[in-house]
């Protein structure tokens, strides 16, 4: 049975690169840094491609963000093998918080008829992991989150949800929203052929209006949280450094741990 799968991906700043906050509006100055496809989203794309290979169907990439999102995140996902993409791009979306992103993405998802909507369980920049469950809630769909080993049968989907002590095997009916956990798989590298093919794959660009997004719910207007202040974290570490050349550093460290009441 062919599966119609959507994968929500975002671009994130490359953590190897230096980051800057935009002083004017206290958001991440995304133009100042190198960006990549969110590493966990690569695993979501891989999981989708594996499901497609096992069941047939189509993989659609959905991404919300400025122009560069398309260049970086969407292209990468298409070159891995996804079939097409929808890029939601609109200035009024700038400043959206996790709830607003989830709402906006849900409006895009509603325009398709997907059996599964895959996300990364958490982005490497925001790291909130708030988007996938909030997306499920906006779509009124069940949500399997922090999972790997995603398998589909006739009408249901099962997966392994990571827990402290191992994993839970969880199941729900389709359609469903699935948050793929880090380490779920080894994402494939785009082949040269894949990279060339991606150039001709359809990317539909939607404005907020196209997606019937209520502008009061997104961007700075819709944000329910606000940044009060940000700044360099004051270096409040003690920075006691001892050298073990005398072979007695363990005694000094034990003294320290005892003073701090860890022993």
């Amino acid at each position, binding site marked *: 049975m062919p599966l119609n799968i959507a994968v929500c991906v975002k671009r994130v700043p490359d953590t190897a690169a230096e980051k800057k906050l935009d002083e004017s509006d206290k958001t991440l100055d995304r133009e100042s840094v190198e960006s990549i496809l969110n590493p966990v989203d690569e695993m979501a794309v891989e999981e989708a491609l594996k499901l497609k290979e096992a069941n047939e169907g189509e993989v659609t990439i959905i991404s919300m963000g400025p122009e560069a999102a398309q260049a970086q995140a969407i292209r990468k996902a298409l070159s891995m093998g996804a079939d097409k993409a929808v890029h939601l791009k609109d200035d009024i979306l700038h400043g959206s918080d996790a709830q607003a992103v989830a709402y906006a993405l849900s409006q895009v998802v509603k325009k398709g008829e997907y059996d599964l909507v895959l996300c990364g369980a958490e982005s490497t920049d925001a790291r909130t*992991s*708030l988007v996938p469950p909030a997306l499920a809630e906006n779509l009124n769909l069940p949500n399997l989150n922090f999972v790997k080993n995603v398998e589909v049968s006739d009408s249901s989907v099962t997966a392994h949800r990571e*827990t402290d002590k191992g994993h*839970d095997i969880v199941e729900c009916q389709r359609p469903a929203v699935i948050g793929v956990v880090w380490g779920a798989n080894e994402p494939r590298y785009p082949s040269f052929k894949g990279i060339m093919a991606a150039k001709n794959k359809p990317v539909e660009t939607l404005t907020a209006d196209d997606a019937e997004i209520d502008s009061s719910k997104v961007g700075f207007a819709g944000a*329910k949280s606000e940044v009060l202040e940000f700044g360099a*974290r004051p270096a409040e570490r003690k920075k006691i450094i001892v050298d*073990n050349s005398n072979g007695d550093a*363990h005694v000094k460290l*034990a003294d320290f741990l005892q003073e701090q009441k860890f022993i």
Partner: protein
Amino acid sequence: MSDVWVLLEHSDGTTTKVAHQLLTGARAIAAETGGQVVALFIGKGWATAKERIAKFGAAKALVAESDEIGGYVASPQVEITARLIAEKQPWGVLFASVPTGKEVATRVAARNGLGVLADAVNVTVQDGKPVCEYSAFGGSTLVKKTLKQGPYLICVKPNSFVAEESPAEVAEETVDASISEDSKRVVLKERVEKEAGGRPAVESAAIIISGGRGLGEPANFSVIEGLADQLGAAVGASRAAVDAGWYPHSNQVGQTGKTVSPQLYIAVGISGAIQHRAGMQTSKTIVAINKDAEAPIFQMVDFGVVGDLFDVVPKLTEEISKRKGGA
């Protein structure tokens, strides 16, 4: 309203350390808002939970006791919490900033049209509103955020508050524990638990000893496990150690692993790459043992030992054992 709620994390009534930390933190917040600390219990085992939380100063508990709930994932907690918030309008609710807590919080927010903040490492109150502190960009930046409108939903990371006992009489109110068919859509089929290592889980442990590539080979993790067991600590690992297959990913600390903020973090044979720091920089006290004095980890330690871990760690383990015995 001014009450501060805590959604209790528990397993069949055995409340977790994080639940006790949140109750303690809620007391300080409630002192500012002028309300009470209210524990929200959902699931089975209330009798056990009640006894445990009475020590941590909850003035009141809302009890939605039901055997059925445990068979489903997250949604029952979402439905019951959302319903109670709409009905009683507390000042706010504290959730544990761990996967399940965040999942419940964000879905309650979406359902009730509220804002939510995740990963707070401290919460204070200013003009009646929450001020949530958290760290960004690999821990190099401190950010303070607030929510525009209550009830405020806030996920607080484990170990942000230190649990302190303050026994109280818990006034309990039984609330509707029924759930809709929609909340039964995600079914828990089976729970697979690895044999218990006996060590605490990385995400909530008060002390974590992490090992990196410097350990050289998987068997050498026993060196830090010995130290961990002396201190009752969890064992963490850098990505280099995890990628090499030396330790499971569930123990990885960092940007693509767990973000932790224990009372004490000891990095052993870990260089301190920014992606590793992203996961542990909010730890209260940081110790590193590394033979390279130039390792970046030393820029952020409270106590650093420049030396060979194979010399320092076993001697330290023995020293601690001796002091504990002699104390």
